[in-house]
C-alpha cells in the first residue's frame, strides 16, 4: 500500500467519524419474503463508551446464506455476537435496538438467553471442541437440555456427523478424544455439535480462517447442504469465499452497515464508493 492511499484511508476514516451518515445502499427485502432475523437501528458500545456498531438495520432471509464482510475491526464479529446475545457475556458491553427473531424482539431484559441460544447456534473462528470424546462433544449439549434417551442420542450423533460430512472419517472412533482430530475435522465436529441442537439459525465467525484450503473447501460444500434446513450467517474476511457461498452479502465499515444486497450484484456492481474502493483493494 502506498503512502498516498494510506493517508486517504485515514481521511476516509476521519470523515466517517465526523459525519453520521456515509453513503449507503441497503437492498430491501421484498414483501412476502420471510426474514428469520432482523436488527433495527442496532447500536453497540464497548466499555459503555466506545461505539462499535452504529445504527445497523439488517434482515436475514430464511434458508439463505448471508455473508458479513468488511475490513478487520469493522464490527463483523461484534454484530454476529449480538444475534445470539453472546455480547451479554462481555462486561460493560451495551447494545440497544430491537433484535427480532421470528418477529419477536429478543433484545429485552426478560428474554431467556439460554433458550435463544438453543435456536441460534454459533461456530467460532478457532475450532473449539470440548476436551471430551467425539461422541460426547455432540451428545453433551442435547443431554444438558434434557434429552437423555440413549437411542435418540446415538441417532442424533450419527445424523449430525453425517450432515457435517465427518461421519465416514470418525464412525469407528467415536470414543476417541476430539483433540486427536485435525483442525479441519475439529471445525466440522463443532458444526455437527451446533446442528445437534436442531437450531434455526447458525452463526459462523470466520469458520475457515484457521484452516487449510482443502478443509475450507469441505466446509464450504457442506454449508450448501445445510441451507435447506438452516439460515446461515457467516463472517468472512475472504471475499472469494463470500462470492462462493453467500446468496446475500452485507458490507460493514467502522461499525456502519454500508451496503447490503444480492452477492453477485454487489461484487459485480457495487453501489457505494466505499465498497467499490474495498473491492478494488484501495484499502483492506
Amino acid at each position, binding site marked *: 500500500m502506498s503512502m498516498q492511499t494510506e493517508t486517504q484511508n485515514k481521511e476516509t476514516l476521519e470523515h466517517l467519524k465526523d459525519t453520521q451518515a456515509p453513503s449507503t445502499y441497503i437492498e430491501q427485502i421484498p414483501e412476502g419474503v420471510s426474514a428469520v432475523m432482523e436488527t433495527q437501528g442496532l447500536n453497540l458500545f464497548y466499555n459503555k463508551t466506545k461505539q462499535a456498531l452504529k445504527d445497523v438495520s439488517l434482515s436475514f432471509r430464511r434458508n439463505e446464506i448471508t455473508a458479513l464482510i468488511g475490513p478487520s475491526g469493522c464490527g463483523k464479529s461484534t454484530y454476529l455476537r449480538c444475534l*445470539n446475545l*453472546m455480547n451479554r*457475556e462481555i*462486561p460493560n458491553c451495551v447494545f440497544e435496538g430491537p433484535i427480532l427473531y421470528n418477529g419477536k424482539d429478543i433484545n429485552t431484559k426478560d428474554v431467556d*438467553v*439460554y*433458550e*435463544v*441460544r*438453543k435456536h441460534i*447456534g*454459533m461456530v*467460532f473462528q*478457532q475450532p*473449539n*471442541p*470440548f*476436551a*471430551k*470424546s467425539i461422541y*460426547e462433544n455432540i451428545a*453433551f*449439549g442435547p443431554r*444438558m*437440555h434434557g434429552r437423555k434417551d440413549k437411542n435418540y442420542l446415538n441417532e442424533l450423533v450419527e445424523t449430525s456427523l453425517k450432515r457435517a460430512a465427518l461421519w465416514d472419517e470418525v464412525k469407528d472412533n467415536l*470414543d*476417541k*478424544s*476430539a*483433540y486427536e482430530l485435525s483442525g479441519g475435522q475439529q471445525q466440522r465436529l*463443532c458444526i455437527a*455439535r*451446533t446442528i445437534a*441442537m436442531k437450531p434455526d439459525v447458525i452463526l459462523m465467525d470466520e469458520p475457515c480462517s484457521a484452516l487449510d484450503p482443502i478443509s475450507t473447501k469441505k466446509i464450504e460444500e457442506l454449508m450448501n447442504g445445510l441451507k435447506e434446513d438452516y439460515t446461515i450467517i457467516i463472517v468472512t474476511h475472504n471475499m472469494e469465499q463470500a462470492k462462493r457461498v453467500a446468496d446475500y452479502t452485507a458490507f460493514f465499515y467502522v461499525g456502519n452497515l454500508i451496503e447490503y444486497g444480492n452477492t453477485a450484484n454487489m461484487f459485480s456492481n457495487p453501489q457505494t464508493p466505499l465498497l467499490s474502493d474495498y473491492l478494488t483493494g484501495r484499502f483492506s
Partner: protein
Amino acid sequence: METMNHGATIEQRKAQIAKSKRSDKIATGVLTAIVVLISVVLVAIVGYIIVGGLPHLSWDFLTSESESFRAGGGIGPQIFNSFYLLFLTMLVSIPLSLGAAIYLSQYAPQNKVTDFIKTIIETLSSLPSIVVGLFGYLLFVLYFGWGFSILSGAIALTMFNLPIMVRVIQQSLEAVPAYQRDAGLALGLTRWETTLHILIPEALAGIITGIILSAGRVYGEAAALIYTAGQTAPEIDLLNFDLTDPRSAWNVMRPAETLAVHIWKVNSEGVIPDIDVVAAGTAAFLMICVVIFNIAARFIGGRIHKKVTAQ
C-alpha cells in the same frame, strides 16, 4: 564474492553458525549440570532421611504410644493425628477453595475490589506458618476457648492452606481458553453448567495437582500446629465413637500432636534417652508418606483426567 542477506560472506556466516552451535552446547551442558545438581541434593536429603530412619521403623514403633521419659516409645497416635488433621483440613479447604476460585475466575466483576481481593489472597499465601499458628493460638485457643485441640489445629491449617489452594485452582481454571467457555454458553448452557461440565473437567489435572501439593504441605506442617493442636498426644481409642469423650480418637476437642510436631518436640525439649532413634524413625515415616501420596495422587489424577476428557 557471494553475499548473504545482511552483507555477510558465506565464510563469515559459517563461522557464526559454528560459534552459536558451540554456545548452544555450553548452555545445554550448564543447564543439565544445574538440574543434575538439584536432583542429587534432593535425592541425597530424601535418601539420608529414609535410609537413616528405616531401620527404626517396626510395627511396634508405628503402633505404640510415645514415651515421655523412657526409651522405646512409638508414634501410633501421632500417625493417626496427622491423618485426621489432614482429612479435616482438606474437608473444609477443598469446597471453600473451589468455591472461591470459581467465583474469582468466572463470576467476579472485573474491578478494583476483585483485584484487591486477589492481591490479599496472594499475600496470605506467603504468610509464614508460625504467624498463622500464633494467630490461631490467640483467636481459637484462647479467645474462642477451644484450647489446644484438633479443631483449633484444623482451622489454623485451613487458614494456612486456603490461599494457596484458591490460587492454584483459580490459575488452572483461568488456563482453560476463553473459547471453551464461549462454546458452552453458545450451546445455551448457563455459566454454572459451563463451569461444572466444561471448565472443571478440563482444569482437573491442575486442580488435583494443586490439592496434592498442598496436602503434602499440610501433612508436614509443624509451626502452625505447635500452639493450636498442641504438643501432647494423649492415649486414644479408635473404636470409641463418643465424640465428647477425651479418649475418643475422633473427638475434635482433644489435643493432638502430629508427626512433624513430634519431631520438633523430641528434638527441642525431649528427655527420652533414644531421641535420635525416635526422631529419625518419625522423619523417615513422614517422608515416605509424602512420597507415597504424591505418586498415588498423581496416578489417580491422571486416571480421572483421562476418564473425563477421553484423552
